[in-house]
C-alpha cells in the first residue's frame, strides 16, 4: 500500500516523511488557527478589564470570551499540537509509516466537530462556565458534549501512539525505543490517565445535570474529579515542549544529548508525579481532610525531581554544544551557542518563562501562601507563564523546526521567526509580571469589570494598563506566527527532508526493559492514584459524611 511512495524513503534509502504530512499539517494548522482567534479574545479581555474605554464592554460578553479563550487554549490548541507532533514523531523517530491513519483522521474530525459543537453554545451565551468544570456553573449540554468529543478524538491518538510503539518493539525485540517516541507515548499514557477525572465528571455529573436528568449534584465530588485532571493536563501540555528540549535542541545547538537514560527517567517521573497531586487546587476546599492535602502537596513538590533532571541534562547538553563551538571558561559556552537559531532562542525564552512560572507555582502550592493569593490574578499569571510562556514558545519553535520537513520548504530568512519569538516573549512577560503584583494586592481573577473610581482599585491602573500593552504584543506575535508558517509553504526547497533527532553522548541500542516501556510505571501510577485519591473520592460514596454541598440544577 505504500510502495507508490517508496515506503517513505528517498532514493538513497533515507527516511522522509511522506505518509502523514497532510494529517500532521491539518492538526497543527487547526491548532494555530484557533490559537490566533483565541489570542484576539485574550487581548480584548485585557482591554475590557482595564480602565481604558473598550468596545463591547459587557460582563456577559467578557465571560463568553473567557470561556472561549480558555477552552481553545487549554483544550484545543494543546491537544491538537500534541496529536500532530505525536504523529510526526511516530513517523520520523520510528522511521516507519504511521499505522491507522484512517483512525487518526476520524480522531481529527471528532476534534473538529467537537470544537464546533462546543463553540456554538459558548457564543450563544449558553455556556459561560469559564472552561473549568466547576458546578454550580452549568452549561448547555452541547458544550459538554463538544468537549467530550474533543477528548474522545484525542483518545484515538493516544491509542495509535501506544500501538505504534508496541508494534515497533515487537519487530525489534530488546532494542531501545527512540527517546522522542518513548516520551510521546509517556504523554499519550499520561493523557489517558488525565482525562479519566474530567471524563467521569462530565459523564456522571455534568451531562446528566445539563440534560435535566439530575436535579442536584455534589459539588465537592465534581471539584475533586476535576482536580484529578487539572494538574496532569499541564504536564500533557508540557511534555511536547520537553521533547523539543531533549531531542531537538541539543542538535540545533550543535551538540549531543547529555544522557538518554536521564531523559527517560525524567519522562517517567513526569508521568508519575503529575497525576496524584491535583488536590493542591482544592487547598481552600472543605470537603477534604488535611492529611490528603498534605500528601498531595508533598507529591506535587516531587515534580522538582524531573524538573531539575531536565534543567541539568539540557544545560549539560548545551554546554557540550557551546564548548564544541569554541566557548571557554565557566560561562563562555553560553554566548558561543547559536542564539540566532529560533529553536535555540525560543528554548532559552521558554526556560526563563518556566522558571518564573515555576516559582509562582511554588507559592500557589504552599497552603499558607496559597491562602493569600487564592483566586487572584497571581494564579492567572502563574499558569499563563507556564502555558503561554514555556509551553507555547516551545510549540512555536518545534513548529519552525519541523515545518520544512513537512512542506519541503525552508523559511527565506530567520529574522521574522526571531521577531515573532521576541514579540511573544516580551508580551507574555509584560502581561504576567503585573498580574503577579495585582494578585498580591488582591485583584480577583475572573471578574469582568472593575470600579476604577474606588481608590483601592484606582491604584491598580498603571499595572493593568501596562498589561494591556503586553496583550497587544502577544496578539501581534500570534498573527505573525500564522504569517511565518504560511511563508514556509512557499520559500526555497530544502535539500534534506529527513528529520534528525539529537544523538545522545553515549548511544545505546539497549536499555533496561523498565526504561523502554510503561507496564511497571502504569502499575505504580495506579497504586499511587489509589492511595492519594481512593479515600478522597470514595468518601462521597462510602462514608456517612456530613450533608454534602449540593447544587440544585432545576427544581
Amino acid at each position: 500500500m505504500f510502495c507508490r511512495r517508496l515506503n517513505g524513503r528517498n532514493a538513497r534509502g533515507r527516511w522522509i516523511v511522506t505518509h502523514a504530512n497532510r494529517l500532521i499539517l491539518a492538526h497543527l494548522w487547526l491548532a494555530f488557527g484557533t490559537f490566533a482567534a483565541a489570542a484576539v479574545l485574550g487581548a480584548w479581555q485585557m482591554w475590557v478589564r482595564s480602565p481604558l474605554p473598550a468596545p463591547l464592554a459587557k460582563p456577559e460578553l467578557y465571560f463568553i470570551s473567557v470561556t472561549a479563550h480558555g477552552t481553545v487554549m487549554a483544550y484545543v490548541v494543546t491537544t491538537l499540537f500534541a496529536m500532530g507532533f505525536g504523529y510526526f514523531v511516530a513517523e520520523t523517530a520510528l522511521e516507519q509509516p504511521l499505522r491507522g491513519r484512517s483512525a487518526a483522521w476520524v480522531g481529527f474530525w471528532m476534534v473538529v466537530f467537537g470544537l464546533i459543537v462546543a463553540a456554538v453554545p459558548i457564543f450563544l451565551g449558553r455556556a459561560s462556565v469559564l472552561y473549568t468544570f466547576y458546578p454550580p456553573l452549568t452549561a448547555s449540554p452541547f458544550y459538554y458534549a463538544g468537549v467530550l468529543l474533543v477528548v474522545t478524538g484525542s483518545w484515538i491518538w493516544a491509542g495509535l501512539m501506544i500501538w505504534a510503539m508496541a508494534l515497533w518493539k515487537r519487530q525489534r525485540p530488546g532494542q531501545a525505543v527512540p527517546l522522542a517516541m518513548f516520551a510521546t507515548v509517556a504523554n499519550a499514557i499520561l493523557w489517558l490517565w488525565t482525562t479519566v477525572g474530567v471524563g467521569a465528571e462530565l459523564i456522571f455529573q455534568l451531562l446528566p445535570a445539563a440534560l435535566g436528568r439530575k436535579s442536584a449534584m455534589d459539588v465537592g465530588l465534581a471539584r475533586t474529579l476535576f482536580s484529578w485532571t487539572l494538574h496532569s493536563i499541564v504536564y500533557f501540555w508540557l511534555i511536547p515542549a520537553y521533547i523539543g528540549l531533549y531531542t531537538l535542541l541539543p542538535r540545533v545547538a550543535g551538540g549531543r544529548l547529555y544522557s538518554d537514560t536521564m531523559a527517560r527517567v525524567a519522562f517517567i517521573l513526569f508521568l508519575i508525579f503529575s497525576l496524584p497531586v491535583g488536590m493542591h487546587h482544592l487547598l481552600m476546599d472543605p470537603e477534604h481532610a488535611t492529611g490528603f492535602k498534605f500528601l498531595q502537596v508533598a507529591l506535587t513538590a516531587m515534580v522538582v525531581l524531573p524538573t531539575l533532571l531536565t534543567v541539568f541534562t539540557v544545560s549539560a547538553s548545551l554546554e557540550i554544544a557551546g564548548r564544541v563551538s569554541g566557548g571557554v571558561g565557566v560561562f563562555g559556552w553560553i554566548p558561543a551557542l547559536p542564539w540566532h537559531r529560533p529553536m535555540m532562542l525560543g528554548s532559552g525564552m521558554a526556560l526563563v518563562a518556566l522558571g518564573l512560572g515555576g516559582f509562582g507555582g511554588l507559592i500557589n502550592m504552599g497552603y499558607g501562601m496559597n491562602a493569600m493569593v487564592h483566586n487572584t490574578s497571581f494564579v492567572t499569571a502563574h499558569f499563563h507563564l507556564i502555558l503561554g510562556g514555556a509551553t507555547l514558545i516551545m510549540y512555536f519553535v518545534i513548529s519552525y523546526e519541523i515545518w520544512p520537513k513537512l512542506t519541503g520548504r525552508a523559511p527565506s530568512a530567520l529574522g521574522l521567526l526571531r521577531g515573532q519569538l521576541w514579540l511573544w516573549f516580551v508580551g507574555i512577560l509584560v502581561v504576567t509580571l503585573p498580574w503577579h503584583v495585582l494578585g498580591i494586592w488582591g485583584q480577583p481573577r475572573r471578574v469582568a469589570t472593575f470600579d476604577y473610581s474606588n481608590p483601592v482599585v484606582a491604584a491598580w491602573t498603571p499595572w493593568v494598563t501596562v498589561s494591556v500593552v503586553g496583550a497587544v504584543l502577544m496578539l501581534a506575535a500570534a498573527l505573525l506566527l500564522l504569517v511565518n508558517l504560511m511563508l514556509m509553504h512557499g520559500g526555497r526547497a530544502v535539500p534534506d527532508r529527513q528529520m534528525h533527532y539529537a544523538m545522545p553522548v553515549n548511544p545505546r541500542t539497549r536499555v533496561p526493559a523498565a526504561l523502554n516501556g510503561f507496564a511497571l510505571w502504569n502499575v505504580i501510577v495506579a497504586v499511587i492514584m489509589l492511595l492519594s485519591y481512593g479515600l478522597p473520592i470514595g468518601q462521597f460514596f462510602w462514608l456517612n459524611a456530613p450533608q454534602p454541598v449540593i447544587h440544585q440544577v432545576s427544581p
Partner: protein
Amino acid sequence: MSAEPEPQRADPVWRLAAGIAIMIIAAALFGFVVVPLAQPDVATIGPLTAICRAIGLRPISSTTARPVEPRAPPAVSQVTWTNSILAMIVAGDPQKGREVAEQCTTCHGEHGIVAETQAPDLAPAVIPNLAQLNRAALFKELSDYRSGSRKSDIMAPLAQSLSDRDVIDVIAYFAAPATSERGSLIDWSTPNGSIADLAERGLPGRHIPPCASCHNMGSGGPIGTPALVGQREAYLEQQLKLFKTGERGNDIYGSMREIADRLTDAEIVAAAKYYAAMQ
C-alpha cells in the same frame, strides 16, 4: 557504537521505584501521623481522633463542645436545601395540588396568573403571580409563611393550615413546567437605559449587584430565588420597600435587605416597572 558495556544491573530502575515508594511513605507518614500529632489540639481530642481527622474518617469540628444556644435563632428562614428536600419538592402531584390550590386561585388567579378584575377588596395589585416561579421558590416562601419567617396576616394562617403533603402538591400545580426553567442566561432583548443597567449590569460604584446575577433563569443564584420577569409591578415595588425597611426579612444573609437599602425609591419604582413589563 560506544564501547560502554550494556548495563548488567537492573538496579537503576528498582532504585528509582524504591525511591518513589520511600518518598510517598514518608509524605503519608508526615501528613497522616506526624503533623496531626504535632498539633496542640491533640491534648483534648486524643491521638487517634487527630489521625482519623487527618485521614478524613472523622469530621473536623472545634475541639470544645459548643455551648447550647440559649436564644432562638433569628427567623430568617427555616428551609434547608438538603438532598431529601430537593427530591421531595419535585415529587408533588399536580392533580392533588389542583384541589389544594382552590383556596389559592381566588386571589392568585387560575394557574397562578392574577386576573386584573379579581378580588378587588384584597388590594389585588400587590398579589403576586405564582405562575412563573420555580418549585424551590414556591416551597421556600410557603414554608417561610408556615414557620413565621415571612409575615402576612392573610398568607400565614392559610399556609399553616396546609399539611406537608399539601405544600408539595400545590407547588407542583403552580410551578412552571420544568422545560421553561432553564432559559437563557442573558436576556439579549433588554432595552438600554439606566434601570436596565442596574438590572443587568449592576452599579459597582454603589456596591449594587445586578438583579440578573441571581434572578434570571439559570443564572446560578441561591436555590429558591424567584424569577422576576412578568411579576406584577405593585407586588415588586411593595416587596422591595418591605425589604428596605426590614419588615420582610426572610432573605438568607440579608442580601435583599442590603440591596434594597441601597436603592432609591425612584429606582425601586423603575425596577418594578422594568420587570413587570418584561415578558
